[in-house]
Structure formats: C-alpha cells, structure tokens
C-alpha cells in the first residue's frame, strides 16, 4: 500500500509548498504595491481632511468627515484660473504644432530609405538626450534677444523643440507597425499613393497619433525648468509654476491646501497617462530584444 501512497503524498506536499510560496509572494507584492502607491493615496487623503486631523500628531488614514474646503481655498488663491488658462494655451499649441511637423518626418523615416536618414536619426536621438538644464541658458539668452521672454510664445517654442524629437521617434514606431501589404493592396486597387495614405494609413495610425499627442500634453503640462525661467510675471505662468510657489512665502504651511492644489494639478495628467501608458511605454526601448 505504501508503495502507491508515498509518491502521491509527495505530490500533495509539493503542491502545498508551491501554494504557500505563491501566497508568500502575493503578500510581498501587496506590500510593495502599498508602498509604491502610498504617496498618491496620502496626497488625496490629506486633501480631503479637515485641518485639525492634518495637524494632529496621530494621523488618520482616511478622514471620517471629509471636506472640500481645501479645494475651494486652492482654487480661490490668486492666479489659479489664469495659470490653468496659460497651461492650456501652451499645451494646445505645442501638441498641434509638434504633431503636424513630427508626423511628416516620421513618415519619411518609416516609409522611405534616403541618403542621410542615419544622420537624421542621430540628430533626433541626440536632441532627445540633451539635458534640459544645459540648454536653459542659451535658450533664455536667445529668447531675451528677440523679446520672447515672459511670453507664452517663447515657452511654446522651447517645448516644441524639446518634444519634437520624441514625437518623431514614437510616431515612426507606430507607422512602421502598420503592415506594408495593406498599403500595397490599396494601391493595386488603383488608389493613388495619397489616397492609400489617407484611407488606409491614417485610420490605422490614429491611435498612435492620439497616444503621442497625449504624452506631449503631459510632458508640456508638467515641464518646470523652462517655464520657471522664461515666464516671470505671476499672471503669465503655468499651473506647474503656480503649484511650486504654493508654500513659498508663509511660515505655517497650509498642508491641506497644498495637497488639494497638488491633486488638482495631477488629475488631468494621471487620467491621460492611464489611458495611453501602455502604448507609449515601449517607444524608447522598442525592439531592443528582438534583434
């Protein structure tokens, strides 16, 4: 009898051990998830707490009496709406201009083989790698020379040049992902090259266009160093700069208001990011392993 049950007992034991190990890993995974997400949770949680709970030495995790007061205060602070408007103007202009210009170049890189394409790729990737802190000085001096400092236009131009290489590179990836056969089939059917382009290529690449523009939106919305240097008047600044000045002057920091303002600044970005993260994440590393 034992000759039959012994191996079975061994399998049961192995299965149980595997299940225990899986449970242990799951616990580790949950702890890591909690630690990673904690700052985001804490920001939102603090934003809804009444002041006495924020300032107490024993923190409450989630307030029993949530309040919207901090959000009202943050919005009522000077320049909130002006800076929101400025951010939207800058981001809108940057997205439209960079998408049009970058799309053309991306088509050239993805669909044509031409002398100098290697040089063009080096240029694009090279600019992508330039540290922004190193470019602030000359861009500022040149913009000042043409009277573009303290002008939204100056910031639009700066964002355009730092985001164009990124846009060209990701769009190129999206266009290359479209099977060549589809386009060729359309041309065999008698469409012109332009016709094949608008009817076959464009609809297929549309999700990529959306993803890239959203990512440009986010980067431009978040950008700090150029906006800080170029836009000097408070009414002329972007929301990111407005947030960075939030506690600047007072000794007693209004933590609730600061966290409410942070939440308001982060919300559009987080929502958009969740929508496109999957599509964009691999643009910078795509194809690294396949070779």
């Amino acid at each position, binding site marked *: 009898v034992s000759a039959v049950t012994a191996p079975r007992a061994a399998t049961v034991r192995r299965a149980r051990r595997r299940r225990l190990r*899986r449970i242990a*890993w*799951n616990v*580790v*995974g*949950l702890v*890591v*998830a909690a630690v*990673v*997400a904690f*700052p985001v949770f*804490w*920001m939102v949680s603090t934003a809804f707490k009444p002041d006495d709970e924020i*300032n107490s*030495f024993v*923190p409450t995790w989630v307030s029993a009496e949530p309040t919207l007061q901090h959000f009202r205060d943050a919005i009522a602070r000077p320049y909130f709406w002006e800076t929101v408007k400025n951010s939207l103007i800058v981001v809108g202009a940057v997205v439209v201009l960079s998408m049009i*210009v970058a799309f*053309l*170049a991306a088509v*050239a890189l993805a669909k*044509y*083989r*031409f002398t100098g*394409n*290697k040089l063009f790729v080096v*240029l*694009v*990737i*090279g600019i992508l*790698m330039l*540290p922004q*802190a*190193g470019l602030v*000085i*000359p861009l500022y*001096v*040149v913009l000042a020379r043409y009277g573009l400092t303290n002008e939204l236009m100056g910031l639009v*131009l700066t964002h355009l*040049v730092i985001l164009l290489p990124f846009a060209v*590179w990701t769009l190129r990836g999206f266009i*290359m992902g479209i099977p*060549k056969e589809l386009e*060729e089939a359309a*041309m065999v059917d008698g469409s012109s*090259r332009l016709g094949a382009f608008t009817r076959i290529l464009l609809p297929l690449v549309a999700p990529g266009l959306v993803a890239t523009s959203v990512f440009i939106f986010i980067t431009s919305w*978040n950008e700090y*160093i150029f906006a800080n*240097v170029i836009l000097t008047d408070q009414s002329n600044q972007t929301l*990111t700069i407005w*947030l*960075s000045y939030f506690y600047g002057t007072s000794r007693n920091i209004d933590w609730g208001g*600061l966290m409410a303002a942070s939440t308001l*600044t*982060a919300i559009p*970005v*987080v929502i958009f990011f*969740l929508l496109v993260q999957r599509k964009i994440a691999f643009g910078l*590393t795509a*194809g*690294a392993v396949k070779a």
Partner: protein
Amino acid sequence: VTVAAEATAHRPRRRPSALRRALRGSVPYLLIFPVIAVITAILGYPLYRLVTLSFQQYGLPELIQRKGVWIGIDNFESVLRDEIFWRTLLRTVIFTAATVGLTIVLGTLIALLLVRISAWVRVLLTAALVLAWAMPAVVAVQVWFWMTNFQNGILNYVLTELRVGDYTQHNWYETSFSKLAMVALLIVWGAIPFVTITVYAGLAQVPRELVEAAEIDGAGPIRVFRDVTFPILKPIFLILTSLSIIWNFGVFTQPYLLIGASHIDPTNYLMGVYVYIEAFGKSDFGRGAAISLLMLLIVAVLSVPYVRRMVQMGTTR
C-alpha cells in the same frame, strides 16, 4: 526599395520620366524639412550661442545691451580652477550612480516579483506603479515634502510606530547628505515604474523552455537569472541604464524644489542646480554657459551607447 518604386512597377504602361523620379526622390527630404527647420531655428542658434557665450563676459548689463564682451577662455579657466565645480561634479557622479543603481536593482526585483504573483495582485501592483509613474515631478516634490515634514510628517510617525527608533520631530533636511538622500529616494520612487514595466515586458520574451531546461538541470533562481534571463535582456538593461544615467545626471526639478531655493548652497549642488544658480542666481551667463557646455559634453559621452543602439534599430528594418 521604396514603396514608390514598387507602386510604379504595378503600372508598367506609365513609365516615369527622369523629372518625375527626381521629384519622388525628394519626397522624404520635403517631409523632414519642417523638423530640420524648426530644430535649426530654435535649437541650432542657441547651441551656437552657448559656445560663443562661454567665451564672453555676459552678465546683466550685457543681457540688457544684448552684447557680450569677448574674454577668451577665462570662463573655462575660472570654472576648472573652481573647487566647487569639481566637488559638484563628484557629488553628481556619486548621486547618479546611487540613484541609477537603486532604480535598476529595485525595478528588476519588482519585475521578477510580478512574474511570481497571482493575476489579481499583479493588476494591483501594476496599477500602483502606473500611478507613481504618472505623478508630475512638481506634485511629487510637494507630496514628499509633506510626508517627510518634521512636525507631523507621516514618515516620522510610521518609523516611530514600527519601533525603528524615535523619529518624533526628526528633521530630514538637516545635513547636505540627508537632503540629497531625500531627493534620491524621491527620484528612485518616480523612476522605478519605467524600469519595472520595461523589464517585465522583456521577461515575457525570454523563451519558457530555456528557463525550464535550466531548472531541470538544477539551477536555482539566481543562476537562472544570471545565466539565462540576464544575457537575453542585456540590450534592455543597457538602454535602461544609459537612459537613467543621462536623466539623473542632469536632474533639476526635484533637488531644486525639494531642498528649496533658500536652502540651496554649494554643499548640496548637483550639476543641473549648479548651472542654474551660476547663470540665473548670480546673473553670470558666460560662466554658466561654460559649465553647461562641459555638462553637455559629459552627457554626450555618456549617451554614446544608447544613441548607437537606437541608430542601429532606427535604420534597419
């Protein structure tokens, strides 16, 4: 072979004239022209200006008159003789090595963890990572500042409750080292998601049979990673490491805002902050340009492996 050439092959009756072919050949150049024009206009001239500025005396009066005074290599001489420059460079190298090392190691460990957990935990952990990734740098700084606040920051409370020690009223921004350590933690927190999600995607491409074969041969998890997984993922690690080095070497927003403009001083400079203070704090744009130029040269050297890899991928299909 271009698509254009194939297209004409399908329609043999219309033979393209030489002019037509020349026009076709110029299409890619017309397409890239706008990008080239924008980059040359907005970046080319400033880059040229960066070089000339670095040889000029260029302070506030010169900024107003829009004309610098040529002083040769004086700016470079004064920078390279300045002890603050060398200390800052060394500090930035150590800071970069520490943050990149931590990011890659922790990011990879979490990616390996993602493979071993149940699907529902994986969804939760991925969601947490994406949330952290999505946080704008300025917002993250404010939240970190609140969490590590000495009076009622949650970090001190949790450390004290966990009996790590008595951290009541502990000030995390007292010494230069602890200030930079806080900045480093913030940066690592924000950088891990990109590494984890990229490595996790790469792990999916490691052939299952290879891992199983190694396991049957008696290899433990560490050996499997070292001898099977890592060699396959090496290109990904190369790219992730060089990108992280370039990003962290020139970092500005987090150290500048978390340490706070009024507490920034030569003992806690990082390169990005140093350049900014020299130019905009002290209004010496010539000297700032010289430091910028040195910084760009260092980053250019650092980014060679990444650029080479990307060019290989960008021009072969």
